């Protein structure tokens, strides 16, 4: 896999969330999907958002991509706060600065086109004059190792190939931030590794910040930094193998699962400040 000599890709974009909240209404009930998330992702960083179904990670990804407006809180993509942006400006953001990969490779692609057609389709969101700064579709597909299938109809490609095409399309306009929702689900190990290799390539060659939603802890480990979400909050963060619990602004702390198993909900805990830190112990019965 060789890096393009003439590719002009944007530098990685950092992300900063402050107290991000998203509430949606279903029937007569308001559901808080994301509650007060504080998160900082540095430019060029690779981050995995982990968490069980319904933890709010995909909603958070949608907010980062400008697809879901935050109900409250502030969000910066690079130096730009997205809260005040119009729908048109958000479109512009997605056109050139944010690449988004939806869950399910097929949904990211025009099924009746080839990989080349799909990359060209993505280029349509960039002004004609600016397109010459982008890699040619075939060149891009060569870079990501999809040159041999560039002219084949999408439905004829294997699942892993389709997912890689989807990633290629997402970075076709040289975004500084790549957001991918479950890019490795429904793939076998080889397919998963190929996708992760591609994410590495995008991150390393283009400096693109990569944020991936995944259920797979191995994927998280491969990406480096993991952010775990539960009940709409960031609970833990891991960095190079070390897991940290994140203290919320309201002072709440998400306990690791093994601790919760020992201390079921409703357990009274005594928090004691000691010389070497803070200790928690169960209230004696």
């Amino acid at each position, binding site marked *: 896999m060789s890096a393009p000599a003439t590719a002009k890709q944007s530098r990685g974009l950092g992300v900063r969330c402050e107290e991000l909240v998203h509430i949606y209404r279903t029937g007569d009930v308001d559901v808080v999907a994301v509650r007060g998330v504080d998160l900082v992702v540095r430019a060029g960083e690779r981050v995995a958002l982990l968490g069980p*179904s319904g933890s709010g990670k*995909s909603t958070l990804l*949608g907010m980062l991509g400008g*697809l*879901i407006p935050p109900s409250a809180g502030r969000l910066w993509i690079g130096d730009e706060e997205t809260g005040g942006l119009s729908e*048109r400006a958000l*479109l*512009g*953001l*997605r*056109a*050139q600065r*944010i690449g*988004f990969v*939806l*869950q*399910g490779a*097929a*949904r*990211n*692609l*025009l*099924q*009746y*086109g080839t990989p080349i*057609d799909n990359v*060209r*389709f*993505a280029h*349509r*969101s960039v002004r004609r004059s600016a397109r010459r700064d982008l890699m040619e579709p075939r060149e891009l597909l060569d870079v990501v190792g999809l040159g041999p299938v560039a002219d084949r109809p999408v439905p004829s490609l294997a699942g892993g190939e389709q997912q890689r095409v989807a990633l290629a*399309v997402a970075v076709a*306009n040289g975004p500084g931030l790549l957001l991918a929702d479950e890019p490795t689900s429904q793939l076998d190990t080889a397919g998963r590794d190929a996708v992760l290799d591609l994410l590495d390539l995008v991150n390393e060659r283009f400096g693109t910040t990569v944020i991936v939603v995944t259920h797979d802890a191995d994927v998280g480990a491969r990406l480096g930094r993991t952010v775990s979400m539960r009940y709409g909050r960031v609970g833990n963060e891991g960095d190079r193998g070390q897991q940290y619990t994140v203290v919320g602004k309201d002072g709440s702390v998400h306990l690791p699962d093994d601790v919760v198993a020992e201390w079921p909900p409703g357990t009274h805990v005594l928090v004691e400040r000691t010389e070497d830190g803070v200790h928690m112990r169960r209230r004696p019965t």
Partner: protein
Amino acid sequence: MTSLRLALKGLRWRAGSSLAVLLVAVAAVGGAALGPMYAHSAEESLVRDGLAQAPTVTTSVQYRGGVAGQTQFTPIEIRDAVEQQAADPALDPWYLTGTLAMSVVNGSPATADGALGSAQVSWYRGQCEAVIILAGQCPRGPGEAMLSARTADQAGVGLGEQVRLGITADPAQDQATVVGLYDAASADPAVWGLGTPQQFRTAAIEGQPDRLDEVLVDEATMSGISGDVSVSSLRQLDAQSVGLSGVDAMRAAVETATAIPNPDDISGARTVATSGLPAFLDSLQPQVDSMRAATVAVTLQLVLLAWFVLFLLVSATSEERAGEIALAKLRGMTPRSTVSFGLAEPVLLLLVAVPIGLALAWLADVFLARAYLGAGTDVAVTPVALIAAIATCLGGALAAALAARGILTAPVLEQLRRTSGRRARLLRSSAVDAMAVALAVAGIYQLRRGSTDGLALLAPGLIALAAGLLAARALPRLARIAVSRTRTSSSVASFIAVRNIARRPSGLRIVVLLTLAIGIAVFAIDGWFVASANRDQLARAQVGSATVLTVSTDSPGALLAAVDEVDPDGNAALAAVTVSNGDGGLIAVDASRLAAVSSWDPTWAGNTPTGIGSTLHPPSPSPSIAVQGGLTADVTLDRRSGDARVLFAVAVRDARGVPHEIEAGELADGSQRVTADLPMCEDQPCTLTALTFRQPIEIPSTAVEADIGISAASDSLGPVDLAPVGAAGWRPGASSIQVPVDAGAAVASATAGTLGLQVSLDGPADAAVQVADHPDRLPVVQGSELAARPDTSTVVSGLDGRFVGIDVRGEGVLPRLLSQGTLTDLPYALAAMESAPGPFTAMVWLGASAPPDTVADLERAGLVVLGQETIASRSAELDRSSEALSLRLFVLAALLALALAAGTLLASAYVVTRRRGYELAALRALGASTRTLVGTGRTEQSLLAGTGVALGTAAGLWSASLAIPALLGASAAGGPPPWFGPAWVPVGVVVAGALALLLLVADAGSRRIARKAVPELLRQVQE
């Protein structure tokens, strides 16, 4: 180019739905274009038919010049002037070369034995080739003449005989030798123009000369005389050369040719050119306008329907493409790019549909023109058709934009989750509903007022649309009620079906579409069949029997005799005569044959065919009394007072039906033998009609009262019984209307062979008794409009032009005269004649079962067939009237509407397969059987189709009940009582057929969706 390629790939990827949209778009464009194209062809056919059927006198350009009043010009100078003016090249594109004729109208041919009669003496350019010469040759130079064979026979003149033409005072110029005999019936109208050489007519007044057929002479003869020669030329219209686009130019050329008096030409002779063409074209204009209005209305309805259909389909395809459009937004495309991407495929299909639709419309118009319009009717893609096609295309694109609007503005993730959100609520817009209902109400109001244009023509579509929209509002509410009821039902399919109806706008759109399409179809089919039945009835009334021959004959009596000779049983042919009068005309038919021969309908005048026969021809009080050769009788005059002289005359009717009165001499007091010579009764017996007594014209006159006895009557064959039925066989007066004026004679007694009369004479008035071989007053049926006149007379102008008393026995619609005029019995009308018949038109009506050689038999019997018309040909003409052509357009629209509706339903099944497949896949995953899944779709679609069909049928029938009386009212005026339907059978067939088709489509669609609904589909749905 890349975008186009991608759009083409997308269309190929969705081949089924793309084809469906393309077909509907083609049908829509084709339908929209066909309206104006058909209208153009129909309008041309209307004009050409009108011109072709119009009398030559109306459409031709006539040039006349005469020596009368221009004595300074010779016939040659006038002929040259007329010929030069008639050679106007501006008329050449539409008019044939002019005829040229020189005539002396009132010639008086005579032989050495005496005058032959009065006759027109003429020369026609090309006359020798335009008639059949039966003997001798055509006049080739001065002093030669040719007579009709009939005239020669009548006058006893043969070839080689010398005649004086009676056209000039110069004996040298007036003398001619009969060199040829021609067949007067064979004259070619292309040479004779408006005239005919058949001019023979028995003199209307006793003692006056008969009118002879035309005497033909050479051009040199006419040029050389110094009498009053009239010169005429006629340029006949070649109706086949008239195209709609050239009508204005033709009119302008004719107006120019006839408006400017001919300036002095080489001879200085003045000529006059006239034509009825401009006025005739003006009279066609209302029909053309009516056709145009109908076209606009039909086309508008079709285009609106097409837009609606395109809206439905494009919104369905757009929803199917929601994921792709969401992808465009996900990639950050500008709204403009997204719209362009979203609409590229439907717009491409619409653009492709324009040429295909136009081509199909052209082909359809060619077919229609050949099948239903006049021969040679022009078929062209008119600018209006092109505009209609493009408007449909643009409207389709607008519909596509409206349909796609919701999808273009919906949140990306919502679209990707395939939830419907708040999209496509256009149809439920109260404003749209209110507008449709308001327009429908306005249309109904117009129809009730009897208007047949503007909103009234749109009313059927508007009513159906309003019904559909209201149904779309009501149906979800009803379905919600049904949901709670079906919840406890064991039928899962019913529950899901009504639930879908309650919550899905797309199904409601189908109801609107079906209501609209079925409404238009039912209206059109009902209207067509009702109007068609009325046209058939009108044709039957206008013609009278299956075939009607116009014939030439000497007299109504001769006609009656000829028909009786050919068809003695009275089952195949009937003699009929019409005469003009101020009351809409008189038609006299042989009533005893009406039932067997005519197309009489009981609705016309409230009588059965048999009944009308006996109504018009009741039994007469007395049989006819025949006399031959002469009548001799013993007459006794017994004065009771007065001594004035008394003259006695006998009135008879000869075999041709012509009345004669012969003076038998003056009666002396006492007994005497009196003979009336009846030379007209030598060869064939006459019918005794009256015995008349009068005083010689003496001043002062004196009164006489006497008893007169007549006995021992005899003719050349033997005794004549003057009282076959006693006194009842005679009645006072020579005619029915004289009775009140002149009741001076009465039959006092009548025994076998003897008449006893009481006669009272006072002044110049006659006293007469007539044979009561016909009713005293002529039994008649009057046209309803004549009967409704407040000043209805008790008399009618009879066959001889004299008034005859009538007994009105009914009123209604009469054959040929319709609501005008008077119908009576021909034998009785003949019997009521007192003098020779006036101008009349003789006809022979043939029944549908008349043998094929009847016409030849009639000609052998001495009748000359001048023309023929049939109910079928009249029906065909009426089928090309503006009303019929408009309704045919409605039928076309109806068929197209039905095709669009069925196509849309089928296309919807294809288009929504994937979308509905997700829902049914979920049901299948929950354990629902295929049968349940199919049943769900089938029940839902059947409910929607059934609702649409039921409402459409009701709306269509209601529209028809409002519109048909208004549409047919004007054209039915004066004709048979119109029938307003409904035409249950054809409407029932169409509705049942449409329902069956829709149910089949619903079933096929449901099976297809159920087959595609596999649980694997659900994997594509985002959590």
